[in-house]
């Protein structure tokens, strides 16, 4: 079996390989969550402040209310990945739409849309996310919306610049002459050719979205019905001096997941970059 050039370039990047293994583990844990978690993440199942590795079945100890930390982390993986993926998809939809329209039509539409994007980019994104979630009350929906609203501008700029150059290419002129409709040209001619950088950016956006979600829930702006890594670290903050493990383990989960996503993003960037062929980098 011959390996595809993409896969060959991807696997040449050792970090990306490690990243995809870690990411696969996190995804499996998230998918199987309810079946592998031994306890309800909210249930007070043991004595509070139980140290890790002291009681069988509670490998990572319990928190201030006697909830099982390992089970909480397993459920946290679900919500982190869910919010990371969905908010990225929403941000991509907004960003691709605005960027494609701006880049394809150019002129006044372009400059108006880009001004709009610039203003959004000037606002500190984390502060805006805090305000949005606080005003619309924390829930999975409001968190996804807030993260999408602060993450779309770079996508719009990237898609716009791709469209600006691709618009001039011969195959677009040919499609125009063939009488294809504008939406069809945008969706079936130009967009597929602009996909590579968008995919790379998307994988990095999932990582940023997970960091944002965990920061929001650390501040108490997580969905109150979902156990999340940020919430666990946040509730351990005040007892840090007595109970280091409550903050340490969920935080490590965040670092590993985000690191894995960033590494995979770099691997995708290598894999989709055909110019790297035949070069050892």
């Amino acid at each position: 079996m011959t390996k595809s050039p993409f896969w060959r370039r991807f696997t040449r990047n050792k970090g990306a390989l490690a990243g995809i293994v870690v990411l696969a583990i996190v995804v499996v844990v998230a998918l199987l969550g309810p079946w592998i978690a031994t306890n309800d993440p909210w249930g007070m199942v043991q004595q509070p402040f139980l140290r890790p590795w002291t009681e069988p079945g509670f490998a990572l100890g319990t928190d201030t209310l006697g909830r099982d930390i390992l089970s909480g982390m397993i459920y946290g993986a679900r919500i982190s990945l869910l919010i990371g993926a969905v908010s990225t998809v929403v941000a991509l939809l907004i960003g691709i739409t605005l960027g494609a329209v701006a880049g394809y039509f150019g002129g006044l539409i372009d400059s108006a849309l880009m001004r709009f994007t610039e203003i959004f980019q000037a606002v500190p994104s984390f502060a805006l996310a805090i305000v949005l979630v606080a005003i619309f009350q924390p829930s999975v929906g409001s968190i996804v919306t807030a993260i999408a609203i602060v993450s779309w501008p770079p996508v719009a700029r990237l898609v716009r610049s791709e469209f600006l150059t691709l618009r001039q290419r011969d195959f677009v002129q040919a499609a125009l002459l063939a009488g294809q409709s504008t939406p069809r040209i945008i969706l079936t001619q130009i967009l597929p050719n602009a996909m590579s950088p968008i995919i790379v950016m998307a994988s990095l956006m999932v990582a940023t979205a997970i960091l944002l979600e965990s920061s929001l829930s650390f501040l108490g702006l997580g969905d109150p019905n979902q156990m999340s890594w940020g919430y666990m670290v946040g509730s351990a903050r005040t007892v840090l001096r007595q109970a280091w493990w409550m903050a340490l383990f969920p935080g490590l989960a965040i670092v590993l997941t985000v690191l894995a996503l960033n590494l995979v993003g770099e691997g995708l960037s290598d894999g989709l970059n055909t110019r790297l062929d035949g070069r050892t980098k």
Partner: protein
Amino acid sequence: MKRLQFMLTRVLQGLVAILLIATVNFMLVRAAPGDPVSVLAGEAGASDAQFVAQLRTQFGLDQPITTQLATYLGKVVTLDLGFSYRQQQPVLKLIVDRLPATLLLTGSAFVLSLLFGVTLGALSARRAGTWVDSSITVVALIFYATPLYWLALMAVLVFTVQLAWLPGFGFSTVGSGLTGLALAWDIAQHLLLPALTLALFYMAVYARMTRAAMLDVAQMDFVKTARAKGVKPGRILRAHVLRNALLPVVTLAGIQAGGMIGGAVLTETVFAWPGIGRLMFDALLQRDYSLLLGSFLVTAAMAVLFNLITDLVYTLVDPRIELT
């Protein structure tokens, strides 16, 4: 003359941006849970119908929405950001009181991150492909993936709880009665951990960017020319490569400086640093929406201001920039 015109346009654009952000802020106030009047009445500690009607007139909430918006923007222009009933103080005064601490924290973090980031990035580019390069890359990747607040907590755990080297709480030692240099030293000790933890994430960003930009610039023709002329490698690196690679890093840093104030919410929360970030966190806990939105507006305005300053510095540093 052209430069003056350029600056004026940029300033005008900045003002428009701030007014637009204020408009969004106004809409968010309206979207806040509960009728604003009943919220206000509740905060003032009374809720009979007559008082509510009186408040409605007093705050102009019986006016059409466009008039209300105009009134609100007029207030923002005159720096009236409303009143916090929880803290019984005008929002602007609360923010101005906290501003110096936030500026000290973000300013120090900004300088630290740029200093370490550019140094590490340059070192990494100079030794590209060696173990120095790989270890710097790994360290940068890890800090880039670490949540600010968690890094801050771990720093407290190690340096305050375990080693007891540095204080991990507050702005200065409470009730120490220190003055002058002793006070400055005390504040510096309190500043070190929050500033470092805030700086490390951005350091990672700048290190990666400096490395990439330097490797890019090193391929360019003028570098080859310099090498062919026999300029010493160290001088090529400093005067030719680094200098040109710094431009994109500086631009990014200017954009990030505004974002740092947002990130400061997390650091200030962990370290009980009395800045705007901590103020926002307290406002969140107390559901004090006027204070929350006021702090957000000031944060956004500062970000716009930093961008503006970067733009101006940029045109001064790089004469090639088109003034449009």
